């Protein structure tokens, strides 16, 4: 859950930065039509928010599973006694 929210937040910022960078490189026009520019920004933010949210959730879940496996395996093994 936390991984998905963090990833979505990062994805929103990533999308906004990416669309602004595309505009800087001359492939989009944000100069005159403010509504058009905001539509582009919102679309990029939402799309990358969803993508990064899914990625973040998957990564966090995998890390949690690894963590739980590592902790359970180490705590379940008794120390060797000569």
């Amino acid at each position, binding site marked *: 859950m*936390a*991984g998905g*929210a*963090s*990833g979505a*937040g*990062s*994805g*929103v*910022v*990533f999308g*906004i*930065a*990416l669309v*602004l*960078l595309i*505009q*800087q*490189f*001359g492939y*989009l*026009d*944000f*100069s*005159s*039509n*403010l509504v058009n*520019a*905001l539509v582009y*920004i919102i679309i990029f933010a939402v799309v990358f928010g969803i993508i*990064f949210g899914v*990625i*973040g959730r998957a*990564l*966090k879940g*995998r*890390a*949690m599973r*690894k*963590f739980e496996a*590592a*902790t359970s395996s*180490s*705590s379940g093994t008794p*120390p*060797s*006694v*000569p």
Partner: protein
Amino acid sequence: MTVARRSRRFAYLTVAATFVLLAFFVLSSSPVLPPALRPASSGPLTATVLFDGVNIVNHDTVGSAIVTNFSGAFSTAFTWTPTGSGGLTVTQAEIQLFFFGTAIATSSGQFLKFGANSYTLSSDFTQNRYIYEGVYEIVATLSNNGTTLYSQGFYVWIQATDHLTIINIVLILLLILEVYEVAALGRMKIPKQPAAAPPSTPTTGAPPAGAPPSATTPPPAAPQGGAPPGGPSSDSSAGDTSDTTPPSGGT
């Protein structure tokens, strides 16, 4: 505070800051007519505008933007002809560079020459050459004491050398940071487990090879009525290094 919570808080703050900046842009902008409503040419006169020697008439779409840069001064030559019989006096020529519907750079020249029908406006936006690049709309305007007589918009594609602008650098760093933030979600530090209890040593046996002599040599006897030579700390450390009591159960 955990790493995930910190990164999430940072992401929220960044999003909030971005929207605050956008809101600032929107609220601080003066009401500007969208391009579709901007008249290509007003009635009182017809004009020809040359931007750095290029007629702006055929550059009113993004695809036909005039390629330029801000590395030096540029000129905009206005030539006009009144459409009516009465003479018209043009007192100001101006160009405005728009971004998000807001004029972010303006260059204007005021003059008062009766009967004149041309003016060359020299502009210098070199202070912006390391700030931004991209496709922008420029509106060229001729006016008479605030009354717009002619207005025409056209597009320019401002190119920076090697795309080296402050906004590009900041945006690329932001992209890298966000990718790193997401990648960091998949890394979780597994705390090192405490070392397993050492195997118990027999209570009566030879000391292990290489053991320090203090482990086997009993501390010197304290003199009667006085403190031990090493002080209380050495006394306690001697008790810690005793090998007669195993740290954890053993047989």
